[in-house]
């Protein structure tokens, strides 16, 4: 595989000589390191509302970001014009951060060998529009036929292909084609008394249209959205206060993302502003908990062949049997901390500086039977589905909001309760995990993680777990 295999290199006639010239310009005022991140993004989104395809949009964006690092300082500039002069101008702008003798760029860029985690033969973006419309129409019809109380359905399908090309002054050259697709279904239901509730299900990943067609996902998501909405029609007020909570498998893994994931991003720890700073080797969770972040999973939403700095992604153990093992690194933090890069340097697009970010974060399965876990609880709450979450990484306080939960009474699931936010403290919350199920499940592929104004796709997963004590923000 040579550089000519990169769509960006082909389309914009970029060779190694050009890349080296731009990197030299970036380091013309000194600096330890420079990199170029080229991006070519094509997106399509279709949405169906009231059984009408009301919106159909396609777009193309192209750009390059130039970064220069000098010690702990970063200079950054970008251009949406790939004309050589414009790239040189961006390189010189980024160079202004560094003051010192010019640094020589290593000649002879070497290809980074990377896996092929999402060899989608035909990405959704290259399949016909009609096939994609058929998918959302099927979702709409399924949801409406599911129950007479359904009165509104929205279904949307969005997909993209992002081509990236990354060249670094220390000689790395990487490129990737990153497909992404996602189907969403939202249903509104109304009962005889006029009470209105909604339900939502979505999913996808670095997959093609076949993933949705073969899995029958339009029907599956539509039925699930309606089921969730109907459950809410019968929900009572949620309880308030500290209690035992059982999290169901899958998307409730957002607990890990908020409680530990963000706090283990290396930039916060290098700056000593995380509740986890300086705690490597310490017990931060129950010994039943082993948590990993793994960007090297086939086809998943958070997966990457190479991160946005050209480092191949991999599995990183964050917490092993309750003990904190390591942080999620980007290049800058790993250099400053003297650690190895972990393949977690990510950015939203060419207009942004890479930061340490999660990929797919999950807890390894334990030995408990999931039903046994529920049976073990005399009085508590079972949470099956969540919305979003947030964390204050410095205090470690985090929240995540349950959208489908049930009271547990004498080891049995009881009445559904309304949405409630759960709150805990990162380094403490997982110490109260007393049972971990054997049923690890990853989410359907809907996660979007925000940090410093940048959104990136992520995945989460968790088996059924019992947390002996956490605060539930109900209203009962």
């Amino acid at each position: 595989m040579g550089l000519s295999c990169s769509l960006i290199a082909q389309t914009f006639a970029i060779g190694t000589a050009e890349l080296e010239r731009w990197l030299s310009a970036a380091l013309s005022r000194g600096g330890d390191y420079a990199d170029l991140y080229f991006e070519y993004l094509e997106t399509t989104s279709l949405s169906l509302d009231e059984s009408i395809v009301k919106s159909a949009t396609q777009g193309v964006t192209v750009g390059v970001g130039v970064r220069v690092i000098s010690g702990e300082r970063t200079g950054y500039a970008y251009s949406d014009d790939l004309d050589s002069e414009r790239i040189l101008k961006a390189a010189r702008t980024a160079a202004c951060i560094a003051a010192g003798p010019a640094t020589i760029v290593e000649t002879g860029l070497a290809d980074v060998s990377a896996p092929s985690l999402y060899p989608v033969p035909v990405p959704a973006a290259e399949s016909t529009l009609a096939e994609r419309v058929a998918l959302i129409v099927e979702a709409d019809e399924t949801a409406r036929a599911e129950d007479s109380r359904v009165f509104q359905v929205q279904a949307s399908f969005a997909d993209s292909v992002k081509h990236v090309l990354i060249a670094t002054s220390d000689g790395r050259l990487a490129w990737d084609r990153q497909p992404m697709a996602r189907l969403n279904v939202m249903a509104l239901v109304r009962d005889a008394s006029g009470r209105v509730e909604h339900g939502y299900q979505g999913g996808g990943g670095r997959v093609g249209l076949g993933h949705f067609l073969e899995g029958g996902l339009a029907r599956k998501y539509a039925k699930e959205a309606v089921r969730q909405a109907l459950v809410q029609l019968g929900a009572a007020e949620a309880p308030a206060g500290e209690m035992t909570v059982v999290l169901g498998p899958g998307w409730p893994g957002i607990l890990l993302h908020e409680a530990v994931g963000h706090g283990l991003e290396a930039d916060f720890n290098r700056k000593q502003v995380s509740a986890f700073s300086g705690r490597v080797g310490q017990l931060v969770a129950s010994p039943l908990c082993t948590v990993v972040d793994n960007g090297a999973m086939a086809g998943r939403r958070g997966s990457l062949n190479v991160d946005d700095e050209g480092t191949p992604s991999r599995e990183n153990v964050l917490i092993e049997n309750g003990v904190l093992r390591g942080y999620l690194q980007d290049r800058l933090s790993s250099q400053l901390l003297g650690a190895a890069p972990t393949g977690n340097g990510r950015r939203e697009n060419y207009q942004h500086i890479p930061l340490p970010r999660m990929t797919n974060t999950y807890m390894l399965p334990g030995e408990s039977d999931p039903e046994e876990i529920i049976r073990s609880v005399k009085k508590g709450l079972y949470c099956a589905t969540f919305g979003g979450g947030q964390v204050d990484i410095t205090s470690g306080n985090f929240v995540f909001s349950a959208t489908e939960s049930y009271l547990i009474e004498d080891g049995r699931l009881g009445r559904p309760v309304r949405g409630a936010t759960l709150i805990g403290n990162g380094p403490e919350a997982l110490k109260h995990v007393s049972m971990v199920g054997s049923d690890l499940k990853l989410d359907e592929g809907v996660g979007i993680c925000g940090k410093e104004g940048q959104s990136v796709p992520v995945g989460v997963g968790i088996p059924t777990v019992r947390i002996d004590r956490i605060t539930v923000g109900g209203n009962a």
Partner: protein
Amino acid sequence: MNPRNSYEEIAASLIRLAEERGAGAAEATVSAGDEFEAQIRLGNIETLKEAGSRAAGIRLLFDRRVGSAYTSDLTPEGLRRMVDSAAALAAISTEDPHAGLPGAGDLGALEGDLQLFHESVDALDPAVKIDLARQAERAALDFDPRIDNSEGGSFGSSSGWRAFANSLGFLGSYRSSSCSLSVVPVASAEGRRERDYWFTSARSPEGLESPEFVGQTAARRVLRRLGARKAATQKAPVVFEPRVARSLVGHIFSAVSGDAVYRKASYLAGLLGQPVAGANVTIVDDGTLPGLFGTSPFDDEGVPSRRTAVIEGGVLANYLLNSYTARKLGLKTTGNASRGVTGNASVGHGNLFLQPGDASPEQMISSVRNGLFVTELLGSGVNIVNGDYSRGAAGVWIENGELTWPVHEITISGNLRRMFEQIEAVGSDLEFRGSVACPTLLIGEMTVSGQ
């Protein structure tokens, strides 16, 4: 059409391309912007960023079928490809009887200088911008020895153009600028860390609070959090300071936004003319106030910005609408269309605020015997469909009218309908720090969940 600048030229040329392609109606948007950002940490430059970008978008209607597209390639070839792409998409969409442009009579732009652009943002020397961030961080770090770390001080500025044209002959553009200064200090005591922040933003550097004020305010806020503990689970009155109260006004926006209303995905759908809040609550959207962040001469469909009362004396007075949601509801657009460069317009707000009352924040706190003063909210636990509200919170506990110990790791919950009906006092301290603003609010009772 007589374009007055290169952005209007591109927008006008897109309308011509759309008409050549046979579109019955078309809307074109062009946006261009430059940004600068300096981050300082512990006195040293951490990041400097400087760049600009441009993009254009088109929305076409063939009969009542809609297709849209966008591109960052503004060459004639790139624009033509974009129009072709939008036309291909219109062919696969479904006829929507309500799709269309605003009525020709609804189009127009506010006259006069709305003070959205100040040369001084671009003219300010980068060295001065960097120094403002450094001074603000310094002011926080020097404030108290317990402030022993920082996530940094930062200065950001941006300026840009937005142009819009449609096939009914509307062509307009405006230029805007903004800048902001912020600090995030970290304090520790007894092995625990806390952080907080303060920021100031304005359309010109002259409108910013001083770096000393920003740094010291952030410092006071973070110190106030040290030693926080959980509160007991209970029902209690809750005072929202302006920085968090504005999020409640934001929830009202979501609930009165035409998109949610016509789908009946809002707890305020169908309640026009009915009481939905205490008589002391008036919420107004005003896109005409000079110099503010929610101000613009016209909305993203070419309809002039205006002032709309959303809740008046507790009664739901108006929804916020674009032309599509207005047609769906049989009402008139309120000039609240909002979109990026492409797609169907959704609904946005201008300067949305809750009108101040006459109580000072101190009076409001002193009226509470046992309750919570909230200074931070976490998470997204708000359901606009049924009004359920449950969010993480931090703040200070009020005992006998005095702010006492800091509290954290709690949630507050209720229901938006009841919360707005139970607003017992509205502060006099309305201040615009963004396009949504609210004075201090006292809500009679919420569930505080902690220990």
